[in-house]
């Protein structure tokens, strides 16, 4: 139990540093720390699939982020922010946070998942009959690629979309004359 608190506090501290530091590169590295903490916490929450995916995605995401920040002229942030606007947004966010605190009382306490209390929850069936119904021993695999494979098609499409979008945004020349051939 306490391991979760320690890791979450680590993530929160890393997040605060990532948000508040003025050096973009250290900010990006702190994001890496959050992701690494997240990956560890997933492992302790008994989600090895997510832990593996999180850590490899983290590595690649960091490479992408560092590409964006490194060897830019100004990695330090300069200039003041408008004080009034910041105070207002901090107050609003704090109010939402206080409102949100009440919400978590309605959830089942940590450690007793909701599916155990709902009689016809899908997860019950996934655990008890997922293996014979799909033949996969890894139930997460059986959920994402059989029971909810349609979601996964959507997810693969999201990745496809964003890659096409990134190559479109990064192409060298966007506009041409009407009759000019495409290069």
């Amino acid at each position: 139990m306490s391991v979760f608190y320690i890791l979450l506090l680590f993530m929160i501290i890393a997040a605060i540093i990532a948000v508040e530091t003025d050096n973009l590169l250290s900010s990006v590295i702190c994001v890496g720390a959050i992701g690494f903490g997240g990956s560890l916490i997933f492992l302790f929450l008994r989600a090895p699939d997510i832990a593996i995916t999180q850590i490899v995605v983290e590595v690649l995401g960091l490479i992408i982020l560092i590409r964006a920040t490194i060897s830019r002229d100004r990695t330090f942030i300069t200039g003041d922010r408008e004080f009034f606007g910041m105070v207002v947004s901090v107050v609003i966010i704090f109010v939402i946070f206080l409102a949100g605190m009440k919400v978590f009382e309605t959830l089942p306490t940590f450690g007793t998942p909701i599916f155990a209390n709902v009689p016809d929850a899908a997860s019950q069936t996934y655990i008890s009959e997922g293996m014979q119904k799909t033949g996969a021993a890894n139930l997460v695999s059986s959920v994402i690629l059989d029971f909810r494979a349609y979601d996964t098609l959507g997810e693969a499409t999201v990745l496809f979309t964003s890659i096409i979008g990134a190559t479109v945004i990064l192409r060298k020349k966007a506009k041409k004359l009407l009759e000019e051939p495409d290069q």
Partner: protein
Amino acid sequence: MSVPLPVFVAIPLVTAFLLPVFAKRGKAVATVLANLATISLLVLAIGSIGQSRVYEVGKWSIPLGINLVLDGLSSLLLLAISVVSAAAMLFSVRYMEQYTAKAKYLSLFLLMVAGMNGVALSGDIFNLFVFLEIASLASYALVGFGCGHEELEASFKYMVLGTIGSIFILFAVALVYGNTGSLNMAYISESIQNSGLNPGLAFALALFVVGFGLKAALVPFHAWLPDAHPSAPAPISAMLSGVLIKTLGVYALARVVFNIFGISLATGWLLLTLGILGMVAGAFLAIGQWDFKRLLAYSSISQVGYVMLGIGLGGLIIAREGNLAWASLAILGGLFHLLNHAVYKSLLFLTSGSVQMSTGTRELREMGGLAEKLPVTRATCTVASAAIAGIPPFSGFWSKLILVVAAIQAGYYWVAAIIVFVSLCTLIMYLKVQRYVFLGELPENLREIKENRGSMLVAMVFLACLCVLMGLLLTPCLRSSILDPAVKVLVDGVAYSANVIRM
């Protein structure tokens, strides 16, 4: 004709996956394929009118698997999406020759269509989120397609706000799952009816409103729209204003509020207020604009306000247990306006694209006297302006009339007054467009311009014909097959879950 429902998503998806293969050569083949895909979707959507089915993906009965639900509201949305996308795709055949990387453009366009179709058909809340993300990501990339200064800035602003909206929606989905243990909309709705609305679910509802509100550009969350819609290429502006904000925003919000959580007094007032705010603020901001597409974009905010007003008014009457006839009349007005706005606003954006392509500018003060130079564009633009301003024989008049009648019958006289006032503002706005673009004096530098040819004209004339004919949807025969089932879905509210589970 009864095709399996995933075909609506599979056709654009598979075509989109194929298209980048034709990157350099075979641009013509890619264009033809993309057009075939949108036209076949149009045929399928017309074929699906009046049906209502549940399709279980992978033969897993709910709640094990994901289900797709085709009911009146979904088929109305499918129809709007396929009409606008067919026209916009036809328009892009020539218009997009100004840009490079056309095959990728077509692919992104089809992915956006696939995402919207997926949202309209989905019966599972997480699946709705995934398809919403597909459509949103494709639209972020398409807004920045020109890669100029303004395009990129608009795209970044849109992307940040849109992603925050998506995360809110995901958080709401997580809260709903934590409270009900289910992701299927019908099961969630049943569980909420049994246990009542606790603070957790109320917070989730608030997050849904903010998230979908960001996608629909309802007024406190509209900052991205006036930048993003003008910056996109014209056919994409038509898609974004015509259907994207409605599918991802209004439709999803209506589905969540009416069919999952059930309408209550508070949510009814909330929707009505959001609608009125949007209508008034959009109209006032639009009148002052001098950029043609920016004016149209602000006008979109105002017109989406009408749709929200109709739906919210209907919901309010239902929650007050008033006369259901007036409630359904208000919702009918809202949904009919949604369909109308999809047609004429996309037509207006296409004409603005045609004007921009001929003259090279969007600034109203630099144009004038284009009536003789661009006769077809002028004629279609006039039809669309008349329709949006609510001149009697055209479609826009009827939907506004229905809204006014419903508001008066239900005793909300001030709402009726606001509707009439805003439609006067709309009239002024479009008189301004007519005056500065097509009448007046032709500037020296625009003497040589010619009317655009080919597919662009076909697309504009197609939509203009629809604009004129849309009023026919109110004839009993068409109304009972297209509009009434959609209204019934919303009026029935949480009976949705029983319908889906039984089907």
